[in-house]
C-alpha cells in the first residue's frame, strides 16, 4: 500500500517532466524542419483578440496569397496584457518570429533590451509613403516597420448639427472655433428640446495632451517643460464648466463609454482616434449605436497656419509596427523581412483599408479602398481628413517617456477633477519630471 503511494508520487513527478522534455524536443524538431532555405517557410506572428481584431489574419492571408511559399501563423495574445505576456515570452525564448509593437511607449524597452532585429534595409525599401517609420529609428537604425498609423480626428454628428442649427466643420477650425461650436451646439440642442451636449471628452490624458504636444510650436515632452499644456486645459475646463461637455468626475465615476456617448447621440462632437471609425460602423450595423449621419474632420488646430483644406492639419497618433524577434531561425530572416516590407506596401495597405483600418502606407488606392468600406461617410471633408494630415507621435521614443507620461497622467486627473489649478499642477509635474525621471 505504502509502496504504491510512493510509486504514484514518483510517477506524478516524473511523467510531467518527461512530457515536458518530449514536447520541447518536438518543438525544436519542427522549427528546424521548416527552416530549409528553398522549401516552404512558416513564420509566426503575434496578434491579439483575433476574433475582433481581424488585421493580423488579413495581413497573413494577403501575404500568403502573394507569396505561396511563405505561410504566416498568427499566435494569439491577450489584448490588455499583451506587453507583459510578450515580455515573458521573449525572455523565455518562446516568442513568435514577428511581433507587434502595440504602442510606442514600450518600443524602447524591447529595442534597448536587444529584442528587435535591425530592419533598416526594409525601411530603406518601403520608402517615404509610410508614415510613422521615423518613430522606430534609434541611432540611425530602424527596428520596426509600421503597418498601421492611427491618428486623431474630430468626429461630428451631422444630424445634431442641423438640429441645433450650427454650421458643420469645414476643415478650417482652430480650437476657438471648436469651443464656440460646442457651446452653440449645447444651447441650440437645448432649445430644440434635445438633451445632447456639444462635445464629449474622454478621460484619457491623450484627449488634451496629445494634441497640445503635437500642435504647439516647440513643445517637447522630453524637455520637462509642460507650459504648452495650459491653453488646452483652460479650454477643456471652460467647456466643462459651461456644461458643453460632461464633467470629468461624472465620466470617471460612472465609467462612461465614449462609443456610447457619441454612438447613441449624447454628444454632437468627439475628438477620438481613427480606430473608432471601424467601431462606430460596426456598432451602427449591429444596433449598439443609433443610425445617424456623421463625418470626420481634422482635429481643431493651434492656429490658422495649419487649418484649412489647402493646408496640412497637425494631429497626433502612434504607429503600430512589426518587429523581428532576434531569436528567429537565421534561415527565416529573409522571409520575415519580406513580410515586413509587404505590410508597409500599397498592397498590404489596401488589405487593411478594406477592413476599415488606417494603414501606415498612404496612397490614393488605399484611400479609395478605405472609403469603399460599407457605412463609411463619403463627403469630401472626411476624405481629406483621412488622407491629409501631419501625424506626430504621442510618445517620442526615449527611456524617459513612460515615466513622464505617468507624471502627466497625474497632472491630467488633478486638473480635470479640479483638485489642483492648472499652474500648480504644471509646476508639480515639472518638478517631478526633473527630480524623478529626467535625472535617471
Amino acid at each position: 500500500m505504502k509502496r504504491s503511494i510512493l510509486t504514484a508520487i514518483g510517477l506524478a513527478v516524473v511523467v510531467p517532466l518527461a512530457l515536458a522534455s518530449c514536447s520541447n524536443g518536438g518543438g525544436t524538431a519542427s522549427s528546424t524542419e521548416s527552416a530549409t532555405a528553398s522549401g516552404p517557410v512558416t513564420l509566426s506572428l503575434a496578434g491579439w483578440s483575433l476574433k475582433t481584431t481581424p488585421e493580423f489574419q488579413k495581413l497573413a492571408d494577403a501575404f500568403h496569397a502573394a507569396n505561396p511559399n511563405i505561410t504566416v501563423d498568427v499566435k494569439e495574445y491577450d489584448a490588455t496584457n499583451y506587453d507583459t505576456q510578450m515580455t515573458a515570452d521573449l525572455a523565455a525564448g518562446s516568442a513568435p518570429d514577428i511581433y507587434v509593437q502595440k504602442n510606442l511607449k514600450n518600443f524602447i524597452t524591447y529595442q534597448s533590451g536587444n529584442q528587435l532585429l535591425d530592419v533598416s534595409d526594409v525601411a530603406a525599401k518601403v520608402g517615404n509613403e509610410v508614415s510613422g517609420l521615423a518613430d522606430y529609428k534609434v541611432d540611425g537604425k530602424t527596428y520596426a516597420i509600421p503597418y498601421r498609423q492611427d491618428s486623431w480626428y474630430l468626429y461630428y454628428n451631422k444630424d445634431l448639427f442641423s438640429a441645433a442649427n450650427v454650421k458643420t466643420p469645414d476643415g478650417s477650425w482652430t480650437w476657438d472655433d471648436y469651443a464656440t461650436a460646442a457651446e452653440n451646439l449645447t444651447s441650440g440642442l437645448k432649445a430644440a428640446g434635445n438633451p445632447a451636449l456639444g462635445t464629449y471628452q474622454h478621460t484619457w490624458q491623450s484627449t488634451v495632451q496629445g494634441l497640445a504636444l503635437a500642435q504647439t510650436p516647440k513643445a517637447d515632452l522630453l524637455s520637462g517643460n509642460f507650459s504648452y499644456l495650459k491653453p488646452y486645459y483652460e479650454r477643456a475646463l471652460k467647456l466643462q464648466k459651461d456644461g458643453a461637455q460632461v464633467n470629468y468626475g461624472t465620466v470617471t465615476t460612472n465609467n462612461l463609454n465614449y462609443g456610447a456617448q457619441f454612438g447613441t447621440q449624447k454628444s454632437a462632437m468627439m475628438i477620438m482616434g481613427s480606430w473608432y471609425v471601424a467601431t462606430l460602423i460596426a456598432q451602427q450595423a449591429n444596433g449598439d449605436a443609433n443610425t445617424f449621419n456623421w463625418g470626420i474632420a481634422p482635429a481643431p488646430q493651434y492656429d490658422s497656419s495649419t487649418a484649412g483644406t489647402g493646408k496640412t492639419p497637425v494631429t497626433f497618433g502612434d504607429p503600430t509596427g512589426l518587429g523581428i524577434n532576434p531569436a528567429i531561425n537565421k534561415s527565416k530572416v529573409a522571409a520575415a523581412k519580406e513580410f515586413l516590407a509587404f505590410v508597409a506596401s500599397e498592397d498590404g495597405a489596401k488589405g487593411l483599408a478594406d477592413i476599415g483600418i488606417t494603414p501606415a502606407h498612404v496612397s490614393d488606392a488605399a484611400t479609395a479602398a478605405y472609403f469603399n468600406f460599407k457605412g463609411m461617410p463619403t463627403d469630401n471633408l472626411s476624405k481629406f481628413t483621412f488622407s491629409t494630415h501631419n501625424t506626430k507621435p504621442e510618445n517620442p521614443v526615449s527611456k524617459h517617456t513612460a515615466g513622464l507620461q505617468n507624471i502627466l497622467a497625474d497632472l491630467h486627473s488633478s486638473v480635470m477633477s479640479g483638485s489642483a489649478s492648472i499652474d500648480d499642477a504644471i509646476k508639480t509635474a515639472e518638478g517631478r519630471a526633473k527630480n524623478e525621471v529626467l535625472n535617471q
Partner: protein
Amino acid sequence: MATTFETRRPGSRLRLRNTLMGWSFILPNFVGFALLTLVPVVALFYLAFTSWNVFGAAKWIGTANFTRMVGDASFWTAFRNTVYYTVFHIPLTLVVSLALAVLLNQKMRGVAFFRTAAFFPYITSIVAIAVVWNMLFSPDYGPINQFLRAVGVSDPPGWTTSGTWAMPAVIIVGTWREMGYYMLLFLAGLQSIPGELYEAARVDGANAWQRFRNITIPSLRPTTFFITVMLTIGSFKVFDLILVMTNGGPGQSTLVLSQYIYQKGFLENQFGYASSISIVLFAVCIAITVFQFLMNKRRDA
C-alpha cells in the same frame, strides 16, 4: 532520538521511510511554493540592488536604488498615503466589525440572515465593488451626494474626484468590504467566552457597558490581536481596490506603495527600483508585526 541514526536498527529504516513519506506528502505543495513564491522572493532581494529592465542581465548598482528612494518625493507621497489609509482603516474596521459581531451575537429573529448579509461584501468581486461605489460616490448624480443635499449639505464632497476626499472614500469602501470577514472572526471569539462570566457579573450588578468593558474586551484579546495583525498587513498592501476605484488619483492623492511598485515595475519597466520599494514595504510590515507581537507578549506577562 538522534541515536537511532547512529546504529542501523530496524527502527531507523522505518523512520527514514516515514520522513520520506512526510516529504513526499508536502512535495506537491512545496514545489509550487518554492517555484512560485520562494524563488521570486529570493530573487527580489537580489534585484533590489540592481538596475534591470526585464531583458538581459541585471546590472549590480549597490544601494543606489535606496538612496534614490530617499530623494524620491513620489515614494514619500505613496508612503504617507499608505500610512493615512492604515491609520484610519484599522481602527475603523476593528470598531465596526466588533460592533457588528456583538450585535449579531444576540439572540434575535433572522440573525443568520443578517450575519450572511454582513459577510456578503467580502465575497463580492473587488472590481464590482469599486465600480458600484464609484457610481454611488459620483459627485453630481450619485445617490450619496443626493442624500447629503437632501439633508441640507449644500456643498457635498467630490469624493473620488476630489484630492481631499478620495482617500476617505477609499477607506469607507475598504472598511465596508472587510468588516464582514472580521466580524466573523470576532463572532467566533465571542462564542468562546463562557456564559458563566456574564452571569456572575450580572449577579454582582454590572451593567451592560461594564460587562462589555470588563469581560468581552479582555476575553477577546487573542482575537483582537490576530485581527489587528491581519488588518495591518492588509492595509499596508492595499492595491486592487485603489487601482480600480481611483487609480491613485486625482493627481497622487490616493497613490499607495503597492501601486507605486506596480507603476515603476510594470508600467515603466524599472524592476530593480520596484523591487527595492517592495523590500521597504516588506520591512515596514515586518517591523510593525514584530512590534505588535512584543506588545502583546508584554501585556500577557
